[in-house]
């Protein structure tokens, strides 16, 4: 890595793409065959090869992300004699750093771009771990989470949460965030190329984002007061969210399911009380919402299969051998007879415990830990239903829905709050037996049982339903609603365009660019649906020039349609989060003018 001092920078206009040799060669022959003007490589200890590609190739649009790649450069400090960084650490400055981060971020955006919209395509993700598990998904968050990324800027977009936050806080719109951020950076790249300072671009973007938010705020519809209308709003939102997922075939069914579930929550955003159980078999249409609670456990043998007006004790206690917890205690005996005595005492102890539990007047006992055969038998004798090994989640939820408390000591039965439910019964879903608690005290809880042909379908269905539930529960709290189908983007773009016209100075270029990036979203939706995006977006724009237009892209018929008639709605909160997160992400990447990569930590040689 020593450079000749006489030539401060031997190859100023090249960037160095470091890639795995074989896959790299494939890539280059595949993509740039004619355009690679200089290709040279040298081996390094890591069996990596150095490719020199002309910088203009950075216009690449269709990078398939199936391989790992990264840009790096030989550090060149102009006249610097000493390397100040450790070997293997690399440094990229100015234009190159920006280029590397733009390319990385855009590649990510292009990757998920095709999943956007109702006709977006799915991705197959294959894990590198054992078993090479395969996930088929359309959910941006899931795709991004599973990617193995080496480019720091791409990481900003993905790993460090822009999309994760979107998923956690709002639940939906992860793809849109990444696509919008990518488009913003694509526009910013052009501006930087025409010598506009990144800070000026950021200032413009900020103004534009604020203006776009205002524009949306002016157009929101709030139907909170009218319950009937609000419910149809929710239905519309649910349908719009689900239409881009695997559930789109049965979106009517699932939208109703999700809305019912969320309305039961009565405004709380705590999705814990909605339980999702996946059972392979049947078809997606057979999925149903069940009030009450379903526990994926079997009823012990010889115990009642059906209990009416159940009193439930939810417990977290050891029902195997109740250990003596005092430290250092051990059993030390000198004859077999004494062993038998102590064993009897132990049994007695367990029997007393069971008696104490029974003294609560219960007919159902749910324990988080194991129940050994002996106490189980005792319970069976007493005609009490005993369920063992309900996992922690199950216990907490059960306690929540039945209104009982989780007990660990049983000395004063009168003060322990028992849970109640009208009916406990064993039900069959597919081939599995499950225990259903219906008529529980807390009406909020419910269970969604998903049915589907395979695990992949079920997993994807769960993710889609989760998205819909998140969006709906947020909408219940913030009931402002917008139209979908690219309508909000056009509204924002229009307002931002106007701002650009009235803003003096260089910032107006950035503001204009922002509006172009916004329009890219409806364009992508149209492209993904195989429609003529240029034509459609132009018509949409014309349509939006009229006052109070409700026009958006109708993907099904492939034309511009009235969104209020088509019933395509989106939650304001989601759109706002998309806008702000994407701007923030783009800003963060734009501000970078230098990337310093430390030497990767050496792996211990396991040979």
């Amino acid at each position, binding site marked *: 890595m020593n450079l000749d001092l006489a030539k401060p920078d031997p190859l100023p206009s090249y960037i160095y793409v470091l890639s795995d040799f074989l896959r790299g060669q494939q890539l280059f022959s595949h993509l740039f065959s004619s355009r690679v003007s200089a290709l040279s490589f040298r081996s390094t200890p890591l069996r990596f090869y150095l490719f020199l590609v002309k910088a203009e190739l950075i216009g690449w649009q269709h990078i398939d992300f199936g391989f790992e790649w990264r840009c790096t450069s030989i550090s060149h400090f102009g006249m610097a004699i000493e390397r*100040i960084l450790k070997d293997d650490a690399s440094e990229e400055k100015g234009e190159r750093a920006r280029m590397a981060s733009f390319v990385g971020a855009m590649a990510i955006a292009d990757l998920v771009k095709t999943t956007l919209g109702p006709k977006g395509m799915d991705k197959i993700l294959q894990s590198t771990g054992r078993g090479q598990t395969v996930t088929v998904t359309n959910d941006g968050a899931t795709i991004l989470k599973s990617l193995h990324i080496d480019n720091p800027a791409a990481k900003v977009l993905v790993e460090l949460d822009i999309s*994760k936050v979107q998923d956690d806080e709002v639940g939906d719109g992860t793809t849109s965030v990444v696509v919008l951020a990518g488009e913003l950076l694509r526009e910013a790249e052009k501006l930087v190329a025409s010598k506009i300072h990144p800070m000026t671009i950021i200032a413009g973007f900020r103004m534009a984002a604020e203006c776009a938010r205002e524009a949306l705020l002016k157009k929101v519809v709030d139907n909170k007061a009218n319950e009937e209308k609000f419910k149809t709003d929710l239905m519309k939102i649910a349908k719009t969210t689900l239409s881009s997922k695997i559930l789109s075939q049965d979106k009517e069914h699932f939208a109703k399911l999700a809305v019912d579930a969320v309305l039961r929550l009565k405004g709380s955003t705590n999705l814990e009380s909605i339980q999702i159980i996946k059972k392979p078999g049947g078809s997606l249409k057979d999925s149903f919402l069940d009030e009450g609670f379903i526990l994926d456990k079997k009823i012990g043998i010889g115990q009642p299969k059906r209990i009416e007006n159940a009193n439930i004790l939810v417990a977290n206690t050891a029902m195997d051998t109740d250990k003596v917890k005092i430290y250092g*205690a051990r059993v030390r005996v000198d004859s077999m007879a004494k062993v038998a005595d102590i064993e009897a005492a132990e049994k007695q102890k367990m029997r007393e415990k069971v008696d104490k539990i029974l003294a609560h007047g219960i007919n159902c006992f749910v324990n988080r830990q194991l129940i050994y055969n002996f106490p189980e038998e005792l319970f069976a004798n007493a005609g009490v239903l005993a369920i063992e090994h309900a996992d922690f989640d199950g216990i907490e939820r059960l306690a929540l829905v039945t209104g009982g408390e989780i007990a660990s000591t049983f000395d004063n039965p009168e003060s322990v709050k028992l849970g109640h439910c009208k009916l406990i019964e064993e039900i069959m879903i597919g081939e599995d037996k499950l225990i259903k608690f219906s008529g529980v005290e807390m009406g909020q809880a419910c269970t969604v049982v998903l049915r589907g042909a395979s695990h992949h379908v079920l997993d994807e269905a769960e993710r889609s339903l989760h998205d819909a539930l998140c969006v709906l529960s947020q909408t219940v709290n913030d009931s402002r609603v917008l139209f979908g189908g690219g309508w909000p983007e056009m509204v924002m773009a229009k307002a931002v365009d106007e701002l650009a016209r009235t803003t003096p100075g260089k910032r107006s270029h950035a503001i204009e660019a922002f509006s172009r990036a916004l329009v890219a979203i409806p364009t992508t939706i149209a492209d993904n649906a195989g429609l003529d995006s240029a034509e459609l977006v132009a018509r949409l724009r014309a349509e939006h020039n009229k006052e109070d237009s409700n026009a958006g892209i109708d993907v099904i018929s492939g034309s511009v349609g009235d969104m209020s008639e088509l019933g395509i709605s989106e939650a304001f909160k989601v759109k706002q989060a998309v806008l702000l997160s994407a701007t923030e992400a783009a800003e963060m990447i734009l501000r*970078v003018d*230098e990337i310093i*990569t430390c030497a990767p930590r050496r792996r211990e040689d396991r040979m």
Partner: protein
Amino acid sequence: MALAFDEYGRPFIIIKEQEQKTRLRGLDAQKANISAGRSVARILRTSLGPKGMDKMLSSPDGDVTITNDGATILEQMDVDNQIAKLMVELSRSQDYEIGDGTTGVVVMAGSLLEQAEKLLERGIHPIRIAEGYELASRIAVEHLERIAHKFEFGENNIESLVQTCMTTLSSKIVNRCKRKLAEISVKAVLAVADLERKDVNLDLIKVDGKVGGKLEDTELIYGIVVDKDMSHPQMPKQIQDANIAILTCPFEPPKPKTKHKVDIDTVEKFETLRKQEQQYFDDMVQKCKDVGATLVICQWGFDDEANHLLMHRNLPAVRWVGGVELELIAIATGGRIVPRFQELTAEKLGKAGLVREKSFGTTKDRMLYIEHCANSRAVTIFIRGGNKMMIEETKRSIHDALCVARNLIRNNSIVYGGGSAEIACSIAVEAAADRYPGVEQYAIRAFADALDAIPMALAENSGLQPIETLSAVKSQQIKVT
């Protein structure tokens, strides 16, 4: 040189493996060092000022940090060169002592080295240069004191403090809501400041962050935020006028430190031991209850049985609270940390007006807020932001702002920003240079030139013509004085 001969003419080796060692001496050595120092300075130069750019750092484990903070950049840069390490140390010590200006100090040092190189080429001895620099820096500091303004502030008059903090924050990514963050920082510092002794213990300010929400949701809490929730999901989520027992002993059967064995060899012993065990838990909970505690905060875990007993006796509890947080809670609530149940008394309980659990977003993240404490000397700045990086960067920025506010409380004189102080010093040093006979004069002039580097970098980063801007500002300053 590496080979010497002893008195019998036998050669012996002073430095082994001569061929593989390189050695720089004299002017070359100095130049090599200077260039290393300058390359570090050059990395930071573009981060200076309100329009400075950020650096993206990727750690050996692949974690990405985006920051504008000089100390952080240098810390994470994986520097190998000795001189460069010196610069890193320089920035770090600035961070420890003053808290802010970590970028400026490195840029300034770099430009001093740059000027020194020119002098060295002219054949001036390094010691003379160093002496000249020393003289010049004395002049500059004197001048700074002359142009500094004293200002007054009080509990209600925080405007000038906020203004200064805003200057610090404007160079960071958080400048979108710098006003709000500056106010938060100043209020936090004032809340914990000892205005009589003019001292601030920054340990009392806890800066905590949680991913989610917006930067605008960042808030100052007169109390403590703990990233924990109640030990039992059914405990009350809100407690008014809490009496807090702060424990460092677990709700578990005692574990004597000496090794011992309890032998069970008869049924009776088994029985008594069992009773004993139940008694333990009962006693523990009862003790807390007896002294009037309404909330138990414990450093350790609870046994399932103890947990249920606590719940049962209506005594909310929090487990696994970290040591630092425990101390802060003790300070804030005026309670004492109790290491043994036997020592629990009513006086040792901490008091807080309101303890509540707050949940965020759609995930089940919960945090515990302890507010309206008896002694509101401990405060928490709770940062929200779009992603983890944003929060980390905000934490660093807030740290800088807090340090600035603290320094102002210690010494309430300010100089004006935007490079004006540097230019003023540069003019003063330049003027003083002529009065010194001898070679030092050159070094002093070089120092004045080096001072110009900071306003120059500011102008350059903002996209202005550096030389033009600098000369315009300079002439204006000279006209006024």
